[in-house]
């Protein structure tokens, strides 16, 4: 059994407008020391998944089902109090927007100290030392002085480092980073990503990195999971996903991004239309309204939900088209357009 195993995770929210199926049957696993990248556009259920793993939906109105096994323990069925005890120590999270995710009225130090003392019965002095230590580890200059600063007195990069310091203060074995760099500059982003890789190596922790930037994922991940409308539509080893993507949505993502490593194209190749609603998820394949190949499935696309099927070693795709058809399209039509022009 892997360190983290998620099986058929469903997270639904009943709302006034109907049931929001934010996550609808997600399955993946992750070993210690490995990194999983989750990509997908806004609202595809990435954050909800990570909050679900941490048990942060409990007590709310969310309906959770499926299984989450962490280090041999099942979390969905576990008591809220038990999961709370695991949070911070066994699993921790870094949030997207460090400014709004840190309490504006407490100093950075206080917030790290608090996180540390929840799980470690130590004096304030000891915890403070530890906090300074952590701040130094994540590369904050003069940590002994900055520990008493308020979040708003930090620059964006420093805030995110402080968030990381807070998340890592109890050496968690699973670290989920939910868009850790989206709010940051490229140069700072690079620093943070480097830092996370270093730290992961140091602690040998399992890392989930959530983003919609394929570049970030490519830098870090061993495995990649592409989400669309609450479902996994492509999952597999990073190389396999990047060099032999098989789902039209993944193709779309690749086509939408102007790339510095290639010659500039005349035009970008966006995906038509807008992301789907999670209440009225399009029937059949959720991507079919935006999929240029939908008609190739002889109507199956709008009626039948395609299964997540393996195409090659550990590479799973959820598409009605046959494997050969997809490979053909990729090799003959998509890849040349993306690479040349």
């Amino acid at each position, binding site marked *: 059994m892997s360190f983290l195993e998620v099986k058929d995770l469903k997270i639904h929210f009943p709302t006034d407008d109907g049931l929001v199926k934010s996550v609808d049957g997600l399955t993946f696993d992750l070993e210690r020391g490995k990194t999983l990248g989750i990509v997908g556009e*806004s609202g595809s259920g990435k954050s909800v998944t990570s909050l679900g793993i941490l048990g942060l939906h409990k007590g709310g109105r969310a309906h959770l089902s499926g299984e989450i096994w962490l280090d041999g323990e099942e979390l969905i069925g576990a008591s809220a109090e038990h999961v709370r005890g695991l949070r911070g120590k066994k699993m921790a999270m870094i949030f997207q927007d460090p400014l709004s995710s840190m309490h504006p009225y407490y100093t950075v130090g206080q917030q790290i100290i608090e996180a540390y003392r929840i799980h470690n019965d130590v004096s304030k002095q000891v915890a403070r030392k530890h906090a300074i230590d952590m701040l130094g580890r994540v590369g904050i200059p003069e940590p002994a002085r900055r520990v008493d600063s308020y979040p708003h007195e930090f620059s964006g990069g420093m805030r995110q480092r402080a968030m990381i310091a807070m998340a890592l203060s109890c050496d968690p074995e699973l670290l989920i980073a939910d868009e850790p760099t989206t709010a940051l500059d*490229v140069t700072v982003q690079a620093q943070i990503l480097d830092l996370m890789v270093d730290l992961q190596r140091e602690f040998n922790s399992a890392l989930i990195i959530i983003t919609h930037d394929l570049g970030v994922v490519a830098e870090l991940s061993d495995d990649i999971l592409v989400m669309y409308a609450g479902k996994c539509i492509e999952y597999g080893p990073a190389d396999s996903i990047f060099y032999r993507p098989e789902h039209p949505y993944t193709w779309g*993502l690749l086509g939408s991004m*102007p790339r*510095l*490593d290639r010659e500039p194209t005349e035009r970008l190749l*966006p995906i038509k239309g*807008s992301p789907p609603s999670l209440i009225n998820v399009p029937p059949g394949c959720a991507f079919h309204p935006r999929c240029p190949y939908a008609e190739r499935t002889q109507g199956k696309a709008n009626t039948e939900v395609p299964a997540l099927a393996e195409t090659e070693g550990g590479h799973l795709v959820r598409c009605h088209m046959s494997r050969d058809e997809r490979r053909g399209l990729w090799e003959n039509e998509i890849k040349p357009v993306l690479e040349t022009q």
Partner: protein
Amino acid sequence: MSEPNYASEPLLSVQDMEKHFPVTKGLLKRQVGAVKAVDGISFDVFKGETLGLVGESGCGKSTTGRLVTRLLEPTAGKVVFEGQDITHMSQGRLRPLRRDMQMIFQDPYSSLNPRHTVGAIVGAPFRIQGVQTENGVKKAVQDILSLVGLNPEHYNRYPHEFSGGQRQRIGIARTLALKPKLIIADEPVSALDVSIQAQVVNLLEDLQNELDLTYVVIAHDLSVVRHISDRVAVMYLGKIVEIADRKRLYSSPMHPYTNALLSAVPVPDPKARKGRERIRLVGDVPSPLNPPPACRFHTRCWKAQEICKTVEPPLGEVASGHRVACHFPENAVETPAAAAAEQS
């Protein structure tokens, strides 16, 4: 794509523009210093071209855009639009000129008034400027809506009913209403989803071709800027450190900061991370409150020498149309400072 006309008078000319925000401290509102958000920048924008403005967060890009559109009063310098000095023009006299100079805002969520219908938003320019239209405002608005790829039937809807991309289109429609000559786009796509971003970028390009627009596009995403711009200016801490046409800038960047920026962009190619050598900048962007003296990049620059701390490098032209403010530029054949440094 319409070709920019570099020979003629520039449409917009910015000369030595400065903007210092007073910084007050405590409740006494005592001024303790100034944020030199924009500290003496000059550039020209020619008709039909797209000038990209990149740089890290807080380097003064938005401030530049707001100075040009006179949403802020410059501390010093000059803004010339179509040959007219508008730097100190009163808001009243400026009003008619605003028809020709419009702005697209970064955030499609906050730049549209949530209480106004799409029709009211896109029709606002007509009402504010008192422009008469042939078939009434509604018709004009609906025409523009379809121009940016929205359904004219959305006239009576509210912004929150639209997705981010659609909202940004509404914002674009508003700027297009009065058929401006110059559009300043402040991070027009950075709030959008990857899949939508491309739609909007394409739209901007298409509109430029059709309507003969001139753009100043502000962004921090270097790949987007490369895609859309003819020329690119790189800003660092309130100064332009490098400006060149896109090809030169991306193929042979000269300023170390430009290099660092380019190398920091993550590339969606798992193999690249192994081979690629990334310039790892240390430290954060210094505060614009106390910018480092002389060359502002010297605190983070791996090539910095003594001279960088004392003498400010001018934004000198090192090749045709390629200016850089550095004593020791990369990819350079020869620069005076570098030569001097070698000799010493």
